[in-house]
C-alpha cells in the first residue's frame, strides 16, 4: 500500500543532454532562476500528444510570460505521471525539446516545471501546467473468436466471446470488439456479442476490432427442447440461504437435452434484493416474495420463492476482561494446560515495547488472572501458538536488539509459568510474522525472504529447518503474511498474489508436510491478502488495508472477508463476501458454521456461515452478533478505541485480543437455527 503523493505527478525524466536519462536538472544560474520568475505560462508543440506504443515524438516546450511572449533561457524540467511514456531531454541538441517514447498503452499526463529562486540561495520548482498524453497500443493484428459456450439451438440466446490481439501477440488493452451477423434471418447479434438464434440454418458472425475482422460460420439447429421443468416450483427460504433450482430440458422423447443455454431472471413481487446465478442458485438479501424465471428457446417456466428473514442478531455478553495498560496486545492462544486449567497466552506489540508474552489463567473466565510473562529480546511478539498436546508453544519475535529475531520455543511443563527452551534464528533473522503448527512441523512466515520456512520441532529444545517453499523462487517482489494449515493443505496469504494452496499431505498432488506441492491459487484486484482459515468447502480470506492521507488522523483500516469455495481444490472460486462498511478485517476463526472476525475498529463480529454461501453475507443478515472491544476507562492502553486483533472460540466462549485493551472473554448464544 502506498500513501498518497502530495504532488500527483510522478516520475521525473530530466535532462543532461546525451548523458543517461537518469540524472538531475542542475540548479540554474542566478539569472536563470530570476528569469524563471517571469514565466507564467507554457505551451507545447505538438499541442496534442498522442503516439503509439514504441513510437518516438519530438516535444518542444515554450515558456511564456504574462504578456504571452516567449521566455527563453530558464532552467525547466518535465515530469511524467506514470510509466506510459519515457522521456529524455535533448535540450543540448535541440533547444527546449524532449524526446518522448510511448511505452505502455493508456492515458497519462506530464507536467512542466521551472526553477525559481528560494530564500536560501537555492532553487525551488514552480509547476506551470500539465498536459495529457495518449499512448495507443500496438495495432490489432487479429481477432480470436472463442468456441460458443452452448449449443446453437434455435430460440436460445447467449453471449459470444472474442479477443482483439495485437501484432505482438498480446490482448489489446482497449480495442472494442464489435459483432454483426451476416445472416440475420438465422441469428442476430448485438454489437456487444449477445447472439440470438432464431431459426435453423447457417449463420456467419463477424467480429471486428480496429478494422480487423474474423468470421465464423455456425450451424443453428432446431431446438430439441419440448419440455422445460423447474423444481421446486415453490419454495420458502430465508435471506442468505441458497436455493438451487433444478431445470430439466427434455426433448420429445423425454430425454435430457445437453448444452442448451438457459436464461434465468428474478423479479421481486413485493420486495427487491435477490440474485439468481447462471447455475440456477438463488439467494436473497431481503425478505419478500420473488418470481424466478427460466427460459430455453421459446419455452419458459417460473417458480416462486417466499423469503423469510433470518434470526436477528443477539447480544454478545461480556464475561471478563483483563489487559495491560502500558503496551499494545497482539495475538492470542487459549488452551487447556497439562494441569487441567485453562490458559490464554497473549503477545505484545510495539507501542509500549512489545517484548513479552503474557500468561493468563482463564479457568474462570469471569475472573481472569495474570500469572506471569515471558520476556524476550524483542519489541514485538506478534504471534503465539500452542501445539496439539500443549507441551510446547512457539512465539514469534521482531525487533530483537541483535537483529536476529526468529522464533522462540516455550516449555509448557508448567503452563502457568512457561520457560524458554529453544529458539531458532538462523535464516529467520528478519523475524517471523506468523506461524502455524501442524504436529511437529511449524510453518513460519519469513519477514525477510517472504518464503514459508518449514521447521521441525520433533525436538522442541532444538528446532531445525526442514524445508522452505515460496512463490517465484529467486524473485523478491512478493509478500507473504500468514499461513494456516489443516494437515492436508496449507493456505498461504500471499498479499498481492492472493491465496496460495499447497498440498502438505492431502495425497492429491504429492505433497508432504515438509515438501509441499503447489495446488492452486486465487487472487483479486484489491490484493492485500492477509489471513485465511478453512472450514468445510470454504476458505475465509481476509484483507488488511490501511489507507490514510493524514498521519495525524484516525487509523482507518479497510478490507473484508472473501469466501473462497475450494470444493474443487484445483479451481478455487470466490463466491461470497462479508464486509462491515467502513471498517477493516483482521484475524478470523471459523468453528461449526460460525465465523468469528476481529474486525479492527468494528470489534468482534459473529457471522453465521452455515450452509451454502453466495453473495453479500452482511446484507443477507448473516451477522448474528457483535461486540465493541473498547474500554471506557483508563484500564487499557487507549480508551474508547476499538482495535480488535484476533478471536478464538474456546469452551463456549469467545476470546478476543484487542490491541488497545487487551484480552476479552465474551459469550454469544449459538442460534438454534443455522442453515442446513
Amino acid at each position, binding site marked *: *500500500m*502506498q*500513501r498518497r503523493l*502530495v*504532488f500527483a*505527478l*510522478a*516520475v*521525473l525524466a*530530466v535532462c543532461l543532454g546525451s*548523458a*543517461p*536519462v537518469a*540524472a*538531475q*536538472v*542542475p*540548479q540554474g544560474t542566478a539569472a536563470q532562476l530570476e528569469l524563471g520568475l517571469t514565466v507564467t505560462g507554457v505551451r507545447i508543440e505538438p499541442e496534442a500528444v498522442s503516439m503509439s506504443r514504441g513510437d518516438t515524438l519530438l516535444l518542444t516546450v515554450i515558456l511564456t510570460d504574462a504578456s504571452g511572449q516567449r521566455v527563453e533561457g530558464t532552467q525547466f524540467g518535465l*515530469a511524467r505521471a506514470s510509466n506510459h511514456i519515457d522521456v529524455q531531454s535533448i535540450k543540448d541538441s535541440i533547444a527546449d525539446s524532449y524526446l518522448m517514447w510511448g511505452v505502455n498503452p493508456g492515458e497519462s499526463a506530464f507536467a512542466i516545471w521551472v526553477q525559481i529562486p528560494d530564500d536560501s540561495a*537555492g532553487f525551488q*520548482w514552480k509547476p506551470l501546467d500539465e498536459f495529457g498524453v495518449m499512448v495507443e497500443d500496438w495495432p490489432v493484428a487479429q481477432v480470436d473468436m472463442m468456441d460458443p459456450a452452448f449449443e446453437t439451438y434455435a430460440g436460445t440466446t447467449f453471449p459470444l466471446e472474442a479477443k482483439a490481439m495485437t501484432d505482438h501477440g498480446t490482448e489489446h488493452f482497449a480495442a472494442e470488439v464489435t459483432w454483426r451477423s451476416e445472416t440475420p434471418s438465422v441469428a442476430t447479434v448485438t454489437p456487444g456479442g449477445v447472439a440470438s438464434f432464431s431459426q435453423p440454418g447457417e449463420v456467419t458472425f463477424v467480429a471486428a476490432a480496429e478494422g480487423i475482422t474474423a468470421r465464423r460460420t455456425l450451424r443453428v439447429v432446431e431446438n430439441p427442447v419440448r419440455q422445460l421443468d423447474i423444481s421446486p416450483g415453490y419454495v420458502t427460504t430465508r435471506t442468505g440461504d441458497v436455493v438451487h433450482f433444478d431445470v430439466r430440458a427434455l426433448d420429445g422423447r423425454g430425454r435430457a437435452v445437453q448444452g442448451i443455454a438457459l436464461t434465468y431472471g428474478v423479479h421481486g413481487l413485493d420486495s427487491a434484493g435477490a440474485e439468481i446465478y447462471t447455475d440456477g442458485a438463488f439467494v436473497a438479501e431481503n425478505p419478500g416474495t420473488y418470481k424466478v424465471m427460466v427460459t430455453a428457446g421459446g419455452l419458459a417456466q417460473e417458480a416462486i420463492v417466499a423469503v423469510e428473514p433470518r434470526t436477528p442478531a443477539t447480544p454478545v455478553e461480556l464475561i471478563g476482561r483483563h489487559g495491560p495498560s502500558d503496551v499494545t496486545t497482539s495475538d492470542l492462544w487459549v488452551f487447556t494446560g497439562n494441569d487441567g486449567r485453562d490458559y490464554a497466552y497473549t503477545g505484545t*506489540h*510495539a*507501542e509500549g*515495547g512489545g*517484548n*513479552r508474552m503474557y500468561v493468563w489463567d482463564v479457568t474462570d473466565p469471569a475472573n481472569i488472572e495474570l500469572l506471569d510473562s515471558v*520476556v*524476550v*529480546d524483542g*519489541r*514485538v511478539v506478534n504471534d503465539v501458538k500452542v501445539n496439539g498436546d500443549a507441551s510446547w508453544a512457539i512465539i514469534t519475535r*521482531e*525487533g530483537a*536488539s541483535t*537483529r536476529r529475531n526468529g522464533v522462540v520455543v516455550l516449555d509448557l511443563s508448567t503452563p502457568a509459568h512457561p520457560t524458554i527452551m529453544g529458539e531458532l534464528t538462523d535464516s529467520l*533473522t*528478519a523475524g517471523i510474522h506468523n506461524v502455524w503448527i501442524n504436529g511437529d512441523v511449524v510453518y513460519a512466515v*519469513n*519477514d*525477510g*525472504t517472504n518464503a514459508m520456512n518449514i521447521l521441525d520441532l520433533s525436538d522442541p529444545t532444538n528446532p531445525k529447518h526442514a524445508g522452505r517453499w515460496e512463490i517465484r523462487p529467486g524473485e*523478491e*517482489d512478493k*509478500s507473504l503474511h500468514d499461513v494456516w494449515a489443516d494437515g492436508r493443505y496449507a493456505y498461504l496469504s500471499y*498479499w498481492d498474489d492472493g491465496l496460495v494452496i499447497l498440498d502438505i499431505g492431502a495425497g492429491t498432488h504429492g505433497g508432504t508436510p515438509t515438501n509441499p506441492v503447489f495446488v492452486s491459487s486465487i487472487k483479486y484486484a484489491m490484493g*492485500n491478502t492477509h489471513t485465511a482459515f478453512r472450514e468445510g468447502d470454504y476458505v475465509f480470506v481476509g484483507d*488488511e488495508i*490501511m489507507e490514510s492521507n493524514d*498521519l*495525524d*488522523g*484516525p*487509523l482507518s*483500516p479497510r478490507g473484508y472477508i472473501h469466501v473462497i469455495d475450494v470444493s474443487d481444490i484445483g479451481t478455487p472460486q470466490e463466491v461470497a463476501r462479508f464486509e462491515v462498511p467502513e471498517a477493516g478485517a483482521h484475524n478470523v476463526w471459523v468453528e461449526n458454521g460460525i465465523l468469528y472476525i476481529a474486525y479492527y475498529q468494528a470489534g468482534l463480529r459473529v457471522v453465521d456461515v452455515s450452509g451454502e454461501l453466495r453473495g453479500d453475507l452482511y446484507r443477507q443478515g448473516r451477522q448474528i452478533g457483535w461486540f465493541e472491544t473498547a474500554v471506557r476507562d483508563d484500564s487499557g492502553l*487507549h480508551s*474508547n*478505541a476499538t*482495535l480488535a486483533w484476533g478471536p478464538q472460540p474456546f469452551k463456549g466462549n469467545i476470546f478476543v485480543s484487542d*490491541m488497545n485493551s487487551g484480552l476479552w472473554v465474551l459469550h454469544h448464544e449459538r442460534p438454534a437455527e443455522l442453515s442446513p
Partner: protein
Amino acid sequence: MMTRAVLGVVAALVAATPAVGQTPPAADYWVYVANESSDIVSRVRFGPDGITEEKKIRVGILPADLDGAHGLSVSRDGRHWYLSLAHGNPYGQVWKFATGNDRLMDSAGAGLFPATMGISPDGGLLFASNFNLHGNHVPSSVSVYFTPQMEELAKVTTCVMPHGGRVNRAGTFHYSACMMSDQLVEISTRELEVARRLSLTRGMEQLLPVDAADAMAMGDGICKPTWVAVSVDDRHLYVPCNGRGEVLEIDAETLGVERRFATGKGPYNADVSPDGRFLVVSLKGDQAVAVFELATGRETRVPTSQPLTHGVVVTPDSRYAFVSNEAIGHTRGTVDVVDLEAKELVTTVEVQHQPGGIGFWKMEPRP
C-alpha cells in the same frame, strides 16, 4: 477512535541539564531521530535549558506491523528530512517531510530494507541504500530519487547489503559500504552508475571490477563495513569496519588505505566535524563513541547511556555530537550529547524504542 494526534502532541518537557563543570551551550540544537521499533520519529532539542524529546511524529503504514523507521537524513538547507521505512509488502519506502511542522510531503517506493540515505549538497538527489538485511544474499541496490518530486531516477546495483551512504561535498560521488561484499562502492552522481569499487578485506584492499556486485567476502580479514563518512575537503573517506574493530582512512582520489584507527567493538556509524578536527564513531558493541582527533589519530572513548550505540551526527559548530542508543527490548533508547572538546557525555534524553538513524536539523544561538 484513537487518533495519531495523541502521539503527535508536544511531549512533556523532561529536561536534563548539562553535567556539572561543563560550559553550558550557547545555542539551541535540534536533531531528528528515527525509532525503528516504535515507528515514531523523535525531534530532540538541546540547549541552555537542557535536553528534551520535543516532539514525537508517528510514521509508518500498518499499525499492526512494524514498518521499521530506520534511516533519517536532513537536507543541507534544513528544510526537509527524509525517512526510510524498512519494511513493506515487500519493499520499503522513503518519505519526505518538511522540517518544523513535520508534515509528510511526499513518498516513494524503495527496494528491500532501505536504510541509510545520502543527499547531494543541493538537496536535489537522495540516495537510499537498499540494505536487504534479511533477504537472500544477492546484490542489492542504491535507489536514487529526484527530491522535488520524490521520484526514483535509478536503482544502481551495487553489492550485497549496501549500507551507510554519503555524498561528498562536491556532489560528484556517492559512497556506500557493502557489509557482505566487503566493499566500498563509489557511484557517479552524474552517470548514476558505479564508478569504482574497493575491496576492504584485509590484505586484499584493492580496486575491483565495477561489475563485481555479487562478490561475497569470507575469511579472517573481513571488514564488514557499515558506513562511509567523507572528510570536509572530500579528500578522505572513513569506513568503520564493524567486523574487525577499526576505521579505515581511505584516499578518495586513489582509494588507497592511508591510516587505520583501532576502535572498540563494533564501530558502526561515523561523522566528521565540520571543522575537520574530529572523527566520531559509534561503537555498537562497546556502548560508547570513539572520538578521534584526525590530526594525530588520538582516540578518546566516551561511554554512552545505553547499549547498542547506533547513529552519530556532529553539530555545525563542531562542538557536540548527538548519538543514538538503541537499548534492548522494552527499555527505551536514548539520545546522548557528547562534548567534543571535553570528550565527555553532556546529557541524555530517553526517546522511543530502538532509535537509530539521526539527522541534524538546525542550531539557533541564544541572544
